[in-house]
């Protein structure tokens, strides 16, 4: 029972990060192979605050999320300009993730490659669920507002978006910052759940898993990636699949999805929409 609870908690923590990436990739249309670094910033920042400075948990959590948001500016400001080539950004954030790992491994306060053990386990399932619900709520609000609509416009057609008054740079940057915030929140929760964090937990491997969940779940959807990320954590646990084979599967899945169903499970729609359509279809009969 404890085991199941812990798997579900971990899945829920992961869902917050996937939600974050979903804003950036699924709704703004920018692909990132480096969002695990933002999870890492949140994890380390909040862990350092509670471990060394005895900062209250919730404060540390929020601080970690804001730290991740701030760090995202480092990569965002130079690379998200108007004449963006998505390949340049992808490579830049790839390099960013790498550089972040190296920095983590070489700072005193992060205890280097050995990692930070002994973090207080403040995170419980109810807390994570509240955080998840909150994240989903503000994401939905964001997407309905002028800011989210601007992101979606950029995804659909950047040129037409500009002609509708959308500022490309500031919108992309906001999207990145918000997505980093949620990833940082996820990281903080994770650090205080696993009680131990290491640089190697926040690399390209994890970034790819986040991206795989967003793509498999479907771009332009909130419920899709949430569902996919839940599946990605729970299924391998249930099937007792070793870590590296999971990654083999993720890799293969990305290729197959691109070829056979690029819109993923729930591309551009939400779970409730499916039910609505079923009801209306049976109604018109």
């Amino acid at each position: 029972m404890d085991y199941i609870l812990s798997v579900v908690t971990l899945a829920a923590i992961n869902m917050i990060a996937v939600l974050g990436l979903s804003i950036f990739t699924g709704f703004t249309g920018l692909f990132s192979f480096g969002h695990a670094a933002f999870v890492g910033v949140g994890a380390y920042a909040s862990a350092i605050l509670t471990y060394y400075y005895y900062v209250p948990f919730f404060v540390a959590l929020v601080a970690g999320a804001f730290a991740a948001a701030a760090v995202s500016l480092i990569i965002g400001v130079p690379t998200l300009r108007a004449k963006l080539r998505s390949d340049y950004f992808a490579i830049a954030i790839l390099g960013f993730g790498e550089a972040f790992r190296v920095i983590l491994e070489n700072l005193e306060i992060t205890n280097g490659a050995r990692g930070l053990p002994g973090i207080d386990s403040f995170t419980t399932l109810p807390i994570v669920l509240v955080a998840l619900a909150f994240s989903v709520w503000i994401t939905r609000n964001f997407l309905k507002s002028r800011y989210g609509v601007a992101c979606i416009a950029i995804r659909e057609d950047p040129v037409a978006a500009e002609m509708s008054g959308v500022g490309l740079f500031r919108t992309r940057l906001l999207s990145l910052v918000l997505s980093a915030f949620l990833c940082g929140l996820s990281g903080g929760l994770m650090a205080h759940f696993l009680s131990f964090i290491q640089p190697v937990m926040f690399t390209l491997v994890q970034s790819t898993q986040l991206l795989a969940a967003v793509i498999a779940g479907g771009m332009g959807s909130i419920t899709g990636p949430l569902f996919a990320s839940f599946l990605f954590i729970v299924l391998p646990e249930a099937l007792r699949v070793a870590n590296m084979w999971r990654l083999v599967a993720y890799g293969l899945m990305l290729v197959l999805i691109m070829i056979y169903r690029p819109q993923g499970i729930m591309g551009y729609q939400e779970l409730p929409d499916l039910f609505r359509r079923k009801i209306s279809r049976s109604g018109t009969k």
Partner: protein
Amino acid sequence: MFLQTLVTGLSIGGIYALMAVGYSLVFSVLGFSNFAHGAVIMLGAYLGLALAVKLHLGIGLVLVGSIVGSGILAVMNERLAYSVLRRRKAPSLYLMISAMGCSVFLENLVYATIGSRFYAFPEFFSRQVVQFAGSSLSLLDLAAFIVAFLAILALHVFVTRTKTGIAIRAGVCDMTMCSLMGVNVDRLIMVVFLLAGAFAGVAGVFLGVKYLVYPTMGWVTNKAYIAAVIGGLGSLPGALVGGLILGVVETFVSTYVSSVMRDVFSFTLLIALLVWMPNGLFGSDTEEKV
């Protein structure tokens, strides 16, 4: 000391250039980032290792074997993961994701099957050093630099003098028009990937000989992408120059500042360059037709 650092930097830069060229070549022709390139380099290293250790072949044959093997691997990669998307005229981002998927797949397949052990090549180059203007250069580094230089020169000749090479350059400009002119586009793309794979094979072997062979060599091969971006995506001279610059800068940072912060520095160089020259050194600034 300065000259020694420069020379060492140029030799590793040569390897980076080899890695970057294959990636930039595919980008220039097909317009997407083939992130599986790193995995092909890694597999090229393993292939070379197998040839050297199991069949006891010399460095020359190992290189040839790796070139052929990696070339075939790259073509298979294209056929399985990209050709369907290409024919469907899928956006380049889809191809990039597919490439990343391939990379993760291959890297972890090796990890799961062959294992994470680090392997070393047999001693191909004796520990001799060549004295060069007061600094010493290991035979390996010299060989790497020479091979890199010759290979890229050969590519340049191929691309400018041969029929296929010219067709490739035409394809860079407009693939559709190319096919309308009677070029067999599928065959052309196959040639492009063969070339990219060949370069990957050579780079992989040299990387393996210089350092070690292990599944996550991808972390080093990311330098290929950074070098290509520095030089300007899609530009072959850019890939060469980008690789050399990256190698030299890294070695200088390693020697004079800190060897540990080397990768952080590479990344900072990349960002700084993108801020000032958004298209890299030799990249072209194409304004989208609206």
